[in-house]
């Protein structure tokens, strides 16, 4: 097991602890992107309020903020505190979101766009934060202004060092301050634009956290604002060295490094790291499965695949082959992550079809429905013992190898929702196994975003294609345990087999009778 895999397991265990308290729907780790949007809106709304009362001139900025903070502490003061703390929380969720997507390998293939747009978002968030601290024009702002301008001067792109604007009180002017006010408004707007591009390829992107989680985090920030309000430090004075400053470590964590690392080297480090992040989706090991393919001869234009695709990779367009249907499915291979959820949704992807060559209307080249049926039959034909169970699992969650034991066979899919429900019926009604066990990612955190939810709805008869009513539900078990909780899957599989053993005989004879007869 590689280092990254170990890290991922440790990370999933941490998230598992949150699932136990918050449940899968409210687990903040499963909602980091949505929380980012939530904090952004808090910052935007409170920022607009503060701007109404803020004096944008450098000589009066500090005093105007003091009045906002103290004269109307119950409104402006709280708004200022929320503005700061929600900004800090935005950095926290953004950082966790990036680490998480990296560890769970959700940056490759067509997901590159979300990852790559995330990199400028980091810069925009930090620029917005730094300019925000600048506007307070206290000792911290003075420190930030001097260190930042000295850093930019290292680029040698200005005729004169811009840090000279802060040489002494006589050098101070509104020029730079006005620029910072402008940047503090414009940069968050650019950030919003990139945030929109960031989620462009996802269908039903989560931009609002669950209400309970929003209330919990919002209330926490409000309580923090009331108990520990954000205030200014001593007013800026360029005749005095800002020797000791109280840094906001979320935004200014790199600033102390400027005292030890040459400024050009800091440029190399920050730009180099950003470039490395930008290239990550294409660095080895490269994994790019071929996109789903439409077979027009079997596509009736039902649009279920388009409705279920979590990445907006399928569109319906007018029929092009003369068959008497209105539409046909079309796959954008640049956006297809090859999850196979479309094949799982296709009504033609059923193993019961009696055709010489089973071809679905939409299929994955690397695991066609025909191949899936062949693997299912091969796996079940090898099953022996009194309680035979076929496990369908996804490649991104529970380790299927850990579930291998006598009487249990496994078939791996790219996503659990790539399994058409008719396969469960096929296995049980054909007496290929006594039970079917579905496993994969953790609930609320499907690698392909919606695989678990679509599977749940299909099995419950809430979403096409339904699992037929005749399928005995007691012979089907779902376990969403993920990679770190493979042991849970092992336990649930054992318990499931015990329940199966106690059930009435399945079609095709009792398990015991089969055992006696050496039934294969």
């Amino acid at each position, binding site marked *: 097991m590689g280092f990254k895999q170990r890290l991922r397991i440790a990370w999933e265990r941490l998230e598992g*602890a*949150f699932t*136990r*308290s*918050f*449940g899968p729907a409210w687990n*903040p780790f499963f909602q980091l992107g949505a929380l980012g949007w939530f904090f952004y809106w808090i910052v935007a709304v409170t920022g607009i309020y503060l701007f109404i009362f803020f004096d944008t001139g450098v000589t009066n900025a500090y005093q105007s903020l003091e009045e906002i903070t103290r004269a109307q502490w119950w409104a402006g003061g709280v708004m200022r505190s929320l503005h*700061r*703390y929600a900004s*800090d*929380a935005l950095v*926290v969720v953004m950082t966790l979101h990036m680490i998480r997507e990296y560890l769970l390998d959700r940056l490759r293939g067509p997901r590159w766009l979300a990852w790559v747009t995330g990199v400028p978002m980091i810069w925009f968030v930090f620029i917005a934060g730094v300019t925000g601290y600048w506007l307070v024009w206290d000792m911290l702002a003075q*420190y930030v202004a001097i260190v930042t301008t*000295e850093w930019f*001067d290292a680029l040698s792109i200005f*005729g*004169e*060092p811009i*840090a*000279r604007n802060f*040489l*002494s*009180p*006589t*050098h101070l002017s509104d020029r730079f301050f006005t620029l910072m006010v402008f940047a503090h408004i414009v940069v968050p707007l650019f950030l919003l634009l990139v945030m929109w591009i960031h989620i462009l390829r996802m269908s039903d992107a989560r931009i609002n956290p669950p209400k309970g989680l929003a209330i*919990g*985090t919002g*209330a*926490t*920030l409000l*309580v*923090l604002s009331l*108990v*520990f309000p*954000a205030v200014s430090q001593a007013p800026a004075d*360029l*005749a*005095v*060295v*800002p*020797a*000791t*400053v*109280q*840094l*906001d*470590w*979320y935004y200014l964590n790199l*600033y*102390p490094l400027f*005292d030890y690392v040459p400024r050009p080297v800091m440029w190399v480090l920050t730009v180099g790291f950003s470039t490395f992040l930008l290239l990550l989706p294409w660095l080895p090991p490269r994994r790019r499965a071929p996109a789903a393919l439409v077979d027009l001869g079997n596509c009736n234009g039902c649009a279920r695949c388009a409705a279920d695709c979590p990445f907006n990779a399928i569109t319906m367009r007018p029929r092009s082959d003369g068959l008497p249907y209105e539409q046909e499915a079309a796959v954008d291979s640049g956006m297809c992550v090859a999850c196979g959820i479309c094949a799982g949704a296709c009504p033609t992807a059923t193993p019961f079809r009696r055709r010489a060559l089973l071809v679905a209307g939409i299929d994955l080249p690397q695991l066609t429905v025909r191949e899936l049926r062949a693997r299912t039959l091969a796996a079940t034909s090898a099953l022996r013992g009194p309680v035979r169970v076929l496990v369908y699992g996804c490649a991104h969650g529970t380790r299927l190898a850990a579930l291998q034991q006598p009487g249990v066979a496994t078939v791996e899919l790219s996503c659990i929702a790539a399994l058409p429900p008719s396969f469960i019926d096929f296995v049980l009604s054909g007496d290929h196994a006594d039970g079917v066990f579905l496993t994969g990612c953790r609930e609320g955190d499907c690698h392909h975003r919606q695989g678990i939810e679509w599977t749940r709805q299909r099995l419950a008869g809430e979403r096409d294609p339904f699992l037929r009513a005749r399928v005995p539900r007691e012979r089907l078990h779902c376990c969403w345990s993920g990679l770190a909780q493979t042991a849970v899957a092992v336990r649930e599989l054992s318990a499931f087999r015990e329940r199966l053993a106690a059930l009435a005989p399945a079609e095709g004879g009792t398990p015991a009778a089969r055992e006696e007869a050496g039934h294969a």
Partner: protein
Amino acid sequence: MPSPLAWAGQIVAYTAFGVGIGYLSLYPAYTHRDPEQAQIKLSFAHAGARKEDCRRLSYEEIAKLPPGQRRPHDCSRERVPVTVELELDGKLLYRATLEPTGHARDGVSVAYQAFMTTAGRHELVARLRDDVQGRTYAAGAGREGADRKWIGEWNYVHRAQIELAPRQNLAIEFRADKGGFLIH
């Protein structure tokens, strides 16, 4: 409905989130400079003299020029580097020869340096040379400081007794149009 243990877990998580956000937004404080010391900052953007004197063009040379570009003098763009020296209590603090900026080396020479020193009384000497050493100009040559006398290798020298308080930021600037070094 979550169990009491789950509720307790949520309360702990939200508290840790709030405390973490609140604490790291302000603490621990960072000491950027020794608060017992003072800072001297030397900075200027000053163009040195032209490297070569302007040459008076002859009538024939002027006549050869396109009508829109005729001028009485031919001046090279390149400027000489500016050399600056800062001495504190008899010890050399800084000395640099600052090349002119720009591809044609016709821009300003730029200095931006900060030095930490002990608070208290100090003897400060700042020296600067912005011309070819020893070059003199005729009166009314039209260049700032052209009529200055050379003091050894320098054409600008400033001596001052300074009293520095802890955390004081003393800025030394050079402005030829204001007579040389300025202390803020």
